[in-house]
């Protein structure tokens, strides 16, 4: 068993970055995720593993440092919260277009605009549908515990490098700030220069006589070649959709109704399931772990006897659109969620279920 620690979600991410063998972290402070860079600065990872930690002058600079760093074939990472993630969108689009791997953490707070520093899940569209310009996708992982905050950093780098694609960990202010027990994974050594050259032959490692020069760019002024590049990206996203869907089913035997919820809302739904049981309502939970790719088929496979679905998100209703696309009108799908930084209670969720789905 790995080392056990009581940690905040944000701290777990920072510790996991060091243990995952990350080479560089570039960030800019913003609530509710500043603990990531604070922990890293205090922990002196440059002494522990040689990892670089740098506070940039803005989120734009931070993501572009990641863009350059990712080009070297090394493991680069950044974190921020909603307003800062908006600024990173330009860089994310370039990372996606240039097919460079990196991990980006968004500890979501309420918006739009400066919004609130309290938790929210209102950046789902931005994370899963683009956010930046052009046809691209990030792989999006949604942790629901401090444990997953740690684990998904390691998994995140694995998937990002496997597909040469930026990956986002879409968390929220609850998961980032709360403290829980976490089992830390054993440290992975940082890659050596030789390993980097072998594993990432595309990287800017310096042109030797043995190979052509490596050019990392998202630009192609020839429309037919650019379209080929777009098609290649689309094929990659399809492959990711075929291979990397992750979800969890909780209490899904013999049920009449289903919650679909991710992140902290999924935990609230688990409590709501218990409250529902006491009232004789048979309901389970499907928790998407990957938001892109979305577990469309998993939802379709469950439809059989289900009479209705309630999507619970701290937003005006974003993921609910993907659930409706999966369900294709076969059963009622409704959304429930508080906004503005207010976290819904299990009781409120149960009431919404009774009003919108069971009574409706």
């Amino acid at each position, binding site marked *: 068993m790995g080392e056990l620690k009581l940690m905040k979600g944000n701290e777990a991410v920072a510790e996991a970055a060091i243990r995952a063998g990350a080479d*560089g972290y570039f960030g800019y402070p913003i609530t509710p995720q500043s603990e990531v860079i604070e922990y890293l600065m205090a922990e002196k990872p440059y002494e522990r593993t040689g990892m670089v930690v740098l506070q940039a002058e803005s989120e734009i600079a931070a993501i572009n*440092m990641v863009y350059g760093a990712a080009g070297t074939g090394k493991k680069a990472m950044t974190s921020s919260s909603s307003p800062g993630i908006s600024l990173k969108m330009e860089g994310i689009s370039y990372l996606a277009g240039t097919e460079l791997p990196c991990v980006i953490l968004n500890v979501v707070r309420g918006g739009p605009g400066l919004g609130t520093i309290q938790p929210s899940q209102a950046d789902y569209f931005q994370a899963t549908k683009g956010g930046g310009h052009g046809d691209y996708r990030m792989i999006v992982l949604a942790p629901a515990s401090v444990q997953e905050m740690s684990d998904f950093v390691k998994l995140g780098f694995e998937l990002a490098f496997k597909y040469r694609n930026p990956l986002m960990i879409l968390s929220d202010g609850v998961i980032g700030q709360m403290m829980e027990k976490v089992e830390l994974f054993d440290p992975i050594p940082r890659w050596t220069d030789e390993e980097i050259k072998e594993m990432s032959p595309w990287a*800017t*490692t*310096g*042109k030797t006589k043995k190979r052509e*020069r490596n050019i990392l*760019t998202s630009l192609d002024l020839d429309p037919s070649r650019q379209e080929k590049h777009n098609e290649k990206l689309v094929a990659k996203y399809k492959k990711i959709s075929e291979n990397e869907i992750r979800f969890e089913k909780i209490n899904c035997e013999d049920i009449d109704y289903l919650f679909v919820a991710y992140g902290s809302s999924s935990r609230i739904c688990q409590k709501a399931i218990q409250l529902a049981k006491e009232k004789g309502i048979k309901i389970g939970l499907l928790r998407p772990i990957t938001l892109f790719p979305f577990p469309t088929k998993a939802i379709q496979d469950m439809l059989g006897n289900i009479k209705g679905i309630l999507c619970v998100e701290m937003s005006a209703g974003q993921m609910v659109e993907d659930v409706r696309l999966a369900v294709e009108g076969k059963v009622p799908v409704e959304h429930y969620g508080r906004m503005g930084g207010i976290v819904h209670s299990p009781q409120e969720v149960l009431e919404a279920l009774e009003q919108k789905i069971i009574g409706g």
Partner: protein
Amino acid sequence: MSENILKEIIQPENIVYQKTKMMTDKVLSYCPGCGHGTAHRIIMEVVDEMGIGEETIGIAPVGCSVLAYEFMNIDMQEAAHGRAPALATGIKRLWPDKFVFTYQGDGDLAAIGTAETIHACNRGENICIFFINNGIYGMTGGQMAPTTLPNMKSSTSPYGRDIATMGNPLKMTDIVATLPGTYFVSRHSVHTPRNVRRTKKAVRKAFENQRDKKGGVSFVEILSNCNSGWKMTPVQANEWMVENMFPFYPLGDMKIDGELVK
């Protein structure tokens, strides 16, 4: 001249000048007479002469030189508009023993990338920044740049840059020279052989500083014409540059070995 005569003449023993192998064979996409090509060649000649081609990573900007990576025969990455110094920071921090440089126009470096430029300079990143200042946005068709001179015409200042409403030209090189994080700051041009030689010396010094880990940015501004954007012939453009740009942006070293030149 017939093919055969050419073949006779083009022999190794007759070569007096040769393109550095650090430049690719790709035909330059720049307008005839534009300074970009000369600036590329100078930088690549220095990389060649110092024997650091295998250790050098360049960052191309967004601007006319967006395709610099097509011409420079080294590993390169294309930045988003203005972000090259941030990319260079990320690369250099992870590859501290490699040579990293940015190549940026004045719109890229002094408008949209002002923050990235100043903060990379202020952090004292051990990188080289090559800044090609032609006082205009060449690539997008000759719009006003932050460096456009007072009363100078451009497509977005068709009656001349009006200082009262459009602001003053920005002397970025003077600004970064005042920052403790720059080690070498110098302004040059490439319109005569003599100026080319001087520019090359400065570029060499910049790379040597990086090699010797002097600590700090080596920043070389190169004044250049944009004859297309200025709507002049190349010769007229160079004359105009000498007459109008040089008084406002005087050539010479501004900071050597971390000390401001008096």
